[in-house]
């Protein structure tokens, strides 16, 4: 029963996703489409953290480290190779590998949850500080200048089979949306696999998972690496959306926003963080256009209010409202049925079975 409902939900999401993917470029302005590509990149960052933290229980404050790493790896490789397809693959590999190395260090060291958050935050800050000071001409990889706090240029994605052809904004949007859908459903599949189920079990009770014979460290490492790869994909898309990669991708604001998306959208869902990212992106863009409210103030208040009032996020809250109303319908249906049953019973004149 539950599985059927889940499949219906997933099909609905797929249909909506495809409609948006192919329909949006015809309906929205070019500028909005380009902005949406950046938003999609951020949504992928949110998805990766929703997977790693929401499902895996790994409190990573520095998911931006892999996000930014993917962006920088893409930009540098694309500048050096002259073609972008290889750069994309290397970027994803860089994100996943870096996550694997950091993960090995943290999980096999059995570092506790809170300290995990600290270390990951520290790592993204290290990268931020390091890259900001690479302004001089001596800081370069291959032919790509790192550029310090101004960052470096991100060559636009090319058509994979022809390095001369670059993707137009609409085509870039198709690719981005396609990547988002692919990663989303990939994560859905992963969660339902045995690997995913064990990760959830580890989140619920690591001691018991280990006593069942599962090596929690390996599962966490695997999930964390996959999350790093997905975040890197987001980085590649944001690099394309903005056109440049800067150290700001590693900074506290983005790191905080990633956490906010997951909190607002909901821990324990994959759709929630994605929607949360789009929502907050729209909110900050709108806030940026007016000077009444300072965006940091609003973001901070949103975070505080959600932690205090809706600690599980929006999507689960909406879900539980739906469940309550469904239960009310069910119980009303049951009451109607039992009334009819009693009526039939009485009219048939049957006696009670003792």
């Amino acid at each position: 029963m539950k599985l059927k409902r889940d499949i219906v939900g997933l099909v609905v999401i797929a249909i909506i996703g495809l409609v948006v993917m192919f329909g949006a470029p015809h309906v929205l302005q070019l500028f909005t489409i380009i902005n949406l590509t950046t938003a999609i990149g951020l949504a992928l960052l949110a998805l990766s953290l929703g997977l790693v933290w929401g499902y895996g229980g790994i409190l990573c404050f520095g998911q931006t480290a892999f996000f930014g790493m993917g962006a920088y790896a893409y930009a540098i490789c694309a500048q050096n190779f002259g073609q972008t397809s290889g750069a994309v693959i290397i970027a994803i590999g860089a994100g996943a590998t870096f996550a694997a190395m950091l993960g090995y260090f943290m999980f096999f060291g059995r570092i506790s949850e809170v300290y995990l958050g600290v270390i990951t935050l520290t790592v993204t800050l290290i990268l931020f500080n390091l890259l900001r000071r690479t302004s001089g001409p001596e800081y370069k990889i291959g032919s790509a200048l790192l550029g310090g706090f101004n960052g470096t240029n991100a060559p636009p994605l090319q058509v994979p089979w022809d390095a001369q052809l670059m993707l137009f904004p609409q085509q870039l949007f198709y690719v981005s949306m396609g990547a988002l859908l692919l990663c989303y459903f990939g994560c859905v599949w992963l969660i339902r696999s045995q690997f995913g189920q064990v990760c959830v079990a580890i989140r619920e009770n690591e001691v018991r998972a280990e006593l069942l014979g599962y090596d929690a460290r390996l599962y966490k490492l695997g999930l964390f690496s996959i999350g790093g790869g997905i975040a890197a994909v987001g980085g590649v898309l944001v690099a394309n959306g903005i056109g440049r990669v800067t150290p700001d991708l590693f900074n506290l604001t983005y790191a905080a926003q990633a956490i906010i998306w997951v909190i607002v959208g909901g821990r324990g869902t994959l759709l929630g963080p994605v929607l949360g990212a789009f929502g907050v992106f729209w909110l900050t863009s709108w806030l940026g256009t007016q000077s009444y409210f300072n965006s940091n103030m609003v973001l901070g208040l949103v975070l505080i209010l959600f932690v205090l009032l809706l600690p599980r996020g929006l999507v689960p809250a909406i879900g539980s409202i739906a469940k309550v109303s469904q239960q009310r319908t069910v119980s009303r249906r049951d009451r109607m049925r039992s009334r009819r049953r009693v009526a039939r019973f009485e009219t048939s004149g049957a006696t009670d079975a003792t």
Partner: protein
Amino acid sequence: MDFLAALILQFAYGIANLALVGLGLAIIFGMMRVINLAHGEFLMLGGYTVVVATNLGINIWIAMLILAPLVVGAIGVVVERVLIRFLYGRVVDTLLATWGLSLFLIGAVTAIFGPQTATTISAPIGPIAVGDYGTSGYELFLIVLTVALFSGVFAILRYTKLGLLARGTMQRSDMAAVLGVSTSQVYMATFGLGSAIAGLAGGVLAPITGVVPTIGATYIAKAFITVISGGTAILAGTASAAGLLGAMNSIVTYLTGPTLGEVALLGAAIVLLRVMPSGITGRFFRKSL
């Protein structure tokens, strides 16, 4: 010889800086297991208090040593009553809520004062000559202040009734409550004290670092790392972590420059946490304050 003295002073200052910046956070973390991610902003508010006060003509020493801690301490008490109080025991939620608070404070200060400060203040003590080398007299003052602050907090915790109550609550809050201690008041006072010290630190560092709404970000990472690496013993932890990490930072900075120095500091912290996951005082000096 003079060069060595000047160098040692530099190193000592580096350590004192970390210790000073981290102490407020350490008090709150050590006593209440609350990690206040808005700590950097409390430092920032201390700096702003000093700037505003001096602009109004108040003597800089009073502004730094009395006004800043009072103002930020009061803000801390308000924050504890309005926000932190509801999140005790929820470590992750406290982290997130204080992060939200940090964003909020940055936004609020930017909205009120604008993204840059109107004036900067100069250090009230000028350079001092140490033989052939000039060194910052103000840095010397800061070293002395840090030592005095640590001694003061130690004295309070060790020798006063308030300190004893606080330590008891910190170790076994349920027992303290049974004995009639109002744990909520102790927490409020502790958070207030930690905030006040943060305000003091931010105030005295204002002449050196400058005061902008985002200055908190440069403090928080180092404070965080110092406190976590130190472990739960407030004074011993902060002092030992500041000593180790600060020394690492200073040495590498002297050899290669500030960029790698900072990387070395952060890298050393990671290694430290890997080797001693509960911080330095999780393994050594465990019974100390």
